[in-house]
């Protein structure tokens, strides 16, 4: 694990519960990490959200996507474009990037690589 990845994890783990997927989408999801969803969903809440807004899998916590959707609308200082990005179709996770630094992957555009057959963004 690179030094940058260690620093990134040390900062983002306590703040966002970062799981080091290496392809960070926090800015598109109301600064709420989708990898903290027990199903690691990248495109919104599943149909199992309970009536009180808690998670199907872990009833003791609020649905991660409920929080993300709310925060994408209400979080102050979030640029308008980031709010809009919430509705975009995010690609499947590239599992090879797990544990690497998303900051490095952002700079090298490694996190923009998509399978050739992927239709979305």
């Amino acid at each position, binding site marked *: 694990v690179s030094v940058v990845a260690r620093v990134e994890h040390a900062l983002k783990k306590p703040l966002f519960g970062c799981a080091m997927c290496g392809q960070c989408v926090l800015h598109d999801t109301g600064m709420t990490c989708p990898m903290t969803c027990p199903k690691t969903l990248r495109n*919104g809440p599943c149909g199992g*959200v309970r009536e009180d807004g808690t998670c*199907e899998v872990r009833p003791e916590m609020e649905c991660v996507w409920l929080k993300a959707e709310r925060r994408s609308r209400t979080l102050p200082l979030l640029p308008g474009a980031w709010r809009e990005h919430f*509705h975009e179709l995010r690609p*499947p996770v590239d599992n090879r990037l797990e544990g690497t630094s998303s900051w490095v992957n952002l700079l090298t555009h490694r996190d923009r690589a998509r399978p*050739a057959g992927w*239709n979305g963004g």
Partner: protein
Amino acid sequence: MSRLRELAESGRGPIVTAEAPPFDGGGLGAFAEKIDEVARWADAINATDNTAAHAHASNVAVAIALLRCGAEPIIQLVCRDKNRLALQADIVGAALHGVENLCCLTGDDVTSGDEPEARRVFDLDGPQLVSVASTLASGRYLSGRPLEPAPRLFIGAVENPAAPPFDYRPSRARKKIEAGARFLQLQICYHPDRLEGFVAALRAEGVTETVSLLPTILLARSARSLEFVNGTIAGISVPTETIDRVRRAPDEAGAAYELALEQARFALALPGVRGIHLADFRRDGSLARLCADLGLAPRSEREAHADRSPVTV
């Protein structure tokens, strides 16, 4: 072209889809017997994918069995048990046998089933699976490798109008529609206002012109059965008043049936709804009764009359 697609694109209706009862064995004869009632009434039947996170005969096998019985399958695919390779292989493999309709969903978690210790997969999520299915239909695997000839697919998905965040649900449906879904089977909804709001939002955007919305109607037997649904199926809430109404009725089974009939009538009357999806927990002939009470003829008769007297919803 599949019957479901033909109906969806022609605007004829209402469309009736239904859940195949979970099947565990006994041969094709037993299977044919078990689906007989559903097959007589439904235009297409869902071959479920380890429904409620319980292992059963596989979705691909059941879809093929439905074809062999002369019924039209909708193969359901959930993201819980298989990674992207296995899901693509199932779609292409089922298409090899002539399975054209597919319904993509995220799927309930392993912890809601009887093997909660299993590893959950969710390599893709529901909207991504819809997009991958569209890629296959365009003649490529997700990797970009050519898939020739391209399988003929009619792609659908599921959305839950009754689960929070309610105002966001139409946007999530739109994400699946933009990814290629042409029909949406909507999770059973015991809050008429939520269903109405959801359908109205999609209709206002004009998407109901091209996408068939099929709200689920659940045929429950009793208040206890509604309590079970309320307590154990994630994302479904049944209001206490609704359960009490059934419990206090002199004829409980009758009241449970009337509830379903009322829901079906309500759903079909909503502008933008193209049909219904039936889940029969009763298995006592209520599915046939419901269709008849809705003024629907058996499927074979509906098809025979299709050219002469088109009925639009």
